[in-house]
């Protein structure tokens, strides 16, 4: 059974009587110990997707329809109390900016111990021991001293380590990391990513990495989902996605990487901007920015089609696939004729 199954998830924001769709028919699965990535530009709905898994959406956002299943438990219908048992214990989250994520007026220790004690009946002393052990496991020097310090006494990288430690406290099945390295400088980024990889490996935890950094994604994730304007437009094993992107948007994202340009040359970019929630184009939402857009793209929403390796939602790919299929069919016929003749 899949560890996590998200099926046709629709999330909307209800603002002044108008309903704005932030996620549309999002479906994906996650297996135990698997690491997947969700990529896309800002505003694609990546963070909303991460938050809606444990229903942490701020009002006026809400899950309109669809299901989020952890094994066989339906998370999207749970009340706050039931969700509190899942959050932290089965599914834990890491956020973007470690400077903002820890409460400035509580000690590191207090924030670690409370996480343990809110899920298990255990003495403060035992909880403290677990916390110190986890701090140690994320390579924080002299954890006993850090335990009594406040967040402002730690550097950004150190704080993200503390946050990773706090996520590990209860050995969750899934870690959702929402841009965990965006706010850190490059050398620290590499360390934190390595650390995340290691902890997932060692504890066989599944990881959902939300990122716009394809470099990071290629190091971490086995499978990658590309999001655009609230939909998943492509899903593929990370290697395939990077070597042979199918969707024009994915191609654009990869082309935009600085490595793809020569020094001194203008960086490649996808023309235009991600549409706002209240201004979604008709048909395929990417068509105003797509170099291959046809009349059909402007009016109809393409289906999500599996081509044997990846799944893509694009008419271009659909048409190519159909052509290939028809070629294969004709080959089959030729072969059949040949075969028949041979028999004769």
């Amino acid at each position, binding site marked *: 059974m899949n560890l996590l199954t998200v099926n046709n998830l629709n999330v909307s924001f209800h603002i002044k009587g108008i309903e704005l769709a932030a996620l549309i028919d999002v479906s994906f699965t996650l297996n135990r110990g698997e690491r997947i990535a969700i990529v896309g530009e800002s505003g694609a709905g990546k963070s909303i997707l991460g938050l809606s898994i*444990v229903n*942490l959406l*701020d009002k006026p956002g809400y899950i309109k329809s669809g299901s989020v299943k952890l094994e066989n438990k339906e998370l999207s219908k749970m009340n*706050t109390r039931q*969700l*509190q*048992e*899942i*959050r*932290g*214990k089965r599914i*834990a*989250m890491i*956020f*973007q*900016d470690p400077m*903002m*994520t*820890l*409460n*400035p*007026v*509580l*000690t590191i220790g207090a924030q670690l111990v*409370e*996480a343990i004690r*809110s*899920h298990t009946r255990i003495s403060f002393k035992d909880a403290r021991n677990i916390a110190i052990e986890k701090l140690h496991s994320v390579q924080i020097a002299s954890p006993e001293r850090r335990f009594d310090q*406040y967040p*402002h006494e730690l550097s950004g990288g150190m704080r993200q380590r503390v*946050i990773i430690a*706090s996520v590990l406290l209860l050995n969750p099945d899934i870690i959702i990391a929402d841009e965990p390295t965006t706010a850190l400088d490059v050398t620290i980024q590499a360390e934190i990513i390595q650390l995340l990889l290691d902890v997932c490996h060692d504890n066989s935890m599944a990881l959902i990495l939300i990122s716009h950094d394809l470099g990071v994604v290629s190091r971490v994730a086995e499978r990658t989902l590309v999001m655009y304007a609230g939909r998943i437009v492509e899903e593929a094993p990370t290697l395939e996605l990077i070597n042979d992107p199918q969707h024009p948007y994915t191609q654009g994202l990869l082309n935009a990487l600085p490595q793809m340009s020569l020094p001194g040359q203008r960086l490649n970019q996808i023309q235009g901007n991600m549409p706002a929630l209240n201004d979604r184009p008709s048909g395929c939402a990417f068509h105003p920015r797509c170099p291959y857009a046809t009349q059909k793209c402007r009016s109809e929403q393409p289906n999500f089609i599996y081509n044997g390796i990846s799944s893509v939602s694009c008419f271009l790919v659909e048409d190519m696939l159909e052509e290939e299929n028809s070629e294969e069919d004709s080959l089959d016929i030729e072969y059949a004729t040949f075969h028949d003749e041979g028999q004769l």
Partner: protein
Amino acid sequence: MLTFLFRRLIQAFFVMITISVISFAIQGKLGDPVQQMVGTTVSPAERAHLRQELGLNESFTVQYWHFLKNAAHGNFGISYYYKKPVLDLIFERMPATLELAFCAIILVALFATPFGIYAAIRPRSILSRLIMAFSTLGLSVPIFIVAIFLVYVFSIQLHIAPSFGRGHTIDVFGIWKSGLFTKSGLHHLMLPSITLAFALMPIFIRLIRSEMMEVLHSEYIRFAWSKGLSTNRIYFVHALKNTMLPVITIGGIQAGTLIAYTILTETIFQWPGMGFLFIDAVSRVDTPLISAYLMVVGGIFVTTNTVVDLIYGLVNPTVKLENHGL
């Protein structure tokens, strides 16, 4: 800590000097005290003599120097009207004012905190809307209207609370006349302290509400939710502590405002405190009393602000008094 206190003391010294200049300077501008003392029947020669005796003919700087020298010895002069040392008069009245302010602060803390928190947590509920409407009303209705309304309802119509005076007081430590320990004293405190609390309550409700709402939208609160903490822990440990930091600072400044409001409240309820004494002194052009009152209130202001900064340093771990001397 000691460096902090020392720096604060130096600051306080200069603040007090400034206040003394102002409070002394207004002495000459409030009208003729001689006129007030002796009336119109006394001859000009005798008046001139009296002026000479009181030192009113000296130059401003000389008069100010005398004032400072005496003030340093705790002598702010003799009240023209009461013919007693002004500082004694003020200290005699001070317990009444401080007790009134204390009760008002307790009331504000007791009601503004839960109301503000509730309005932040459930901003759309009917009760929250009522609380906010009440606070808007409270901000816009002048305090003396509130007082008159309270007197009308509770004293005149319902007869449950006395409308003036301080009731029975008892001596505590021999110097402090307190109304907090007698039934009649507490009874008399009711309306004035409620009135005074009304002056500050709306500001604090709004302050706590807006601070709390801001804190509830912060990343660390979202992280706290993602850890699966209980709702109570998030509201009352994670959010409340951060909410209270700016409230403490504003609270310190507002404590000074509270003293200003005591003047109004005491006048309406005939409360025998410093504010009442001050208003009397103003109407009698009792300049030594006015100056001394301003100095004492300035002193209270400086002290409360220092104490508030000390408390802030204790509550907020990112402020280290030792390092910053702030």
